[in-house]
């Protein structure tokens, strides 16, 4: 699997990670090596094998649909970079122009 800089940039954008040219180049080389190693899997005869998503072959346990705790927004927002009156602040997302 060849990954040129443009392909790495596309992936990085999907993952919302800013990369400069230098990083894109070195990531591309590393990812090619990793994918070459992973490519062994394509040669395995796994036809008909049920995919295993999880080690516990159990159904998801559900709790009662009831209020169990009421988090304190102030406490949780102590770690937020920018808040006001209990809401998180981000750059303007609606363009009025």
């Amino acid at each position: 699997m060849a990954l040129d800089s443009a392909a790495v940039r596309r992936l990085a954008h999907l993952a919302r990670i800013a990369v400069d040219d230098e990083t894109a180049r070195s990531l591309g080389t590393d990812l090619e090596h990793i994918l070459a190693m992973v490519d062994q899997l394509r040669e395995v005869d796994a036809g008909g094998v049920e995919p295993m998503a999880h080690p516990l072959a159990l159904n998801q346990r559900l709790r009662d649909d009831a209020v169990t705790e009421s988090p304190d927004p102030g406490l949780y927002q102590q770690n937020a970079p920018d808040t006001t009156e209990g809401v998180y602040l981000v750059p303007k997302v609606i363009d009025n122009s």
Partner: protein
Amino acid sequence: MNGKDIKTLARALAAGETTSVALTEAALAAVESCNKELNAFITVDAEGALAAAKSADERIARGEAGPLTGIPMAHKDLFCTNGVKTTAASRMLDNFVPPYDATVVERLAAAGAVSIGKTNLDEFAMGSSNETSYYGPVKNPWDKTTVPGGSSGGSAAAVAARLVPYATGTDTGGSIRQPAALSGITGLKPTYGRVSRYGIVAFASSLDQAGMLCASAEDAAYVLQAMAGFDERDSTSVNDPVPDYAAEITREIRGKRVGIPREFLSEGVETSVRNAFSAAADELSALGCVVEETSLPSLSLSVPTYYVVAPAEASSNLARYDGVRFGHRAENPKDLTDLYERSRGEGFGAEVKRRILIGTFVLSHGYYDAYYLRAQQVRQLIADDFNQAFEKYDFLIGPTTPTAAFALGEKTADPVQMYLNDIFTIGVNMAGLPACSVPMGFDGKLPVGLQIIGRAFDESGILGLAHHYQQATDWHKNVPEGYGNE
């Protein structure tokens, strides 16, 4: 008292020969004098530790102590600690102070454990050498030019240097067992679901499991007793009774069937590791076990499978770091996308970016079936191999790693070389099984480890086998020169 086992410390505390405050002050002093050279701790919480020690002493005086009450320990900096910075060794969380405790932290505190601080690790637990930490690499106390292993490298070095008798760790692909092996200590990765994952910074949720690094299998039994059990807050926590581990590990092991999968002795295993392992297998025969060769034919596929499954889960788990609710935020973003992209670009280190991008790739349209679905199928084949082997054997054993500790910087240039170091540990996480690593000898001056794998929820069995092995051998009593003495 530094360097003593949990039982000895608990007895000394009960007898009034020492106090928790004295033990805690000694541990803090040891960290103070060693941390510059080892870099095992990211945060030391002297104030919190001394307060916990004081209340532990009061509890001991009231006669309400358990085996861990008043004994100093440390948490891998991946466990959330209320009011104490929790970084996951990432710039992303350099300023993160959790408003709550992980269940493991809460349970150990309830048992009277005295946490002296948070140990270094690979960034977001992604690494096998502790070299991906934002706070710099940890040094192996046996030879400070080598790595302690990873990702729980700070916990491993802290215990190896006898700064604390035990420390918590997490194991997604070998992150407890591999550093335990490379640092000459005992480490247990419990069965998936045995210990709550609530409050542990998530990496790969179908593989992550919390355990401990300590000096002996008996100490692991005491610590597991406090950590294990059902937790409502973790939807994958298993509601099975928790046995009395310290009692269970003394059970007879004669007649137990032990398999040696030949894949664990493949090319690439150093001669010294092979020799130490062969002596360990002989020791188990001498203890009355029936030791035979067997096979796990799909084991060689566990590394490629892991490097699809774990990055896929990581890319999804780490989507939460967006520079909005907590964690690093880039300065002067021009719009929301720029905020996300630069916050994540600046906050994550190279290895974390590699894994997020690999995960994004294998989950993306057009590649999902060829990579992710195929990896899940191979994961089932690997789990089937283990299931089949455990129809015949009680335990599977092998070297924990193909080599002893490698030099700092030796494998950082080539991620695939680094990944292959976990070739013997990853399969266990794929299948969700419990396994431990115990010291089994040396390669020169560097320790090497024996891995013991058991059936799901048979922590008693594997710790029992390890305990009997440690009753018959002294490897686990070795301490690196210059550490562990009063």
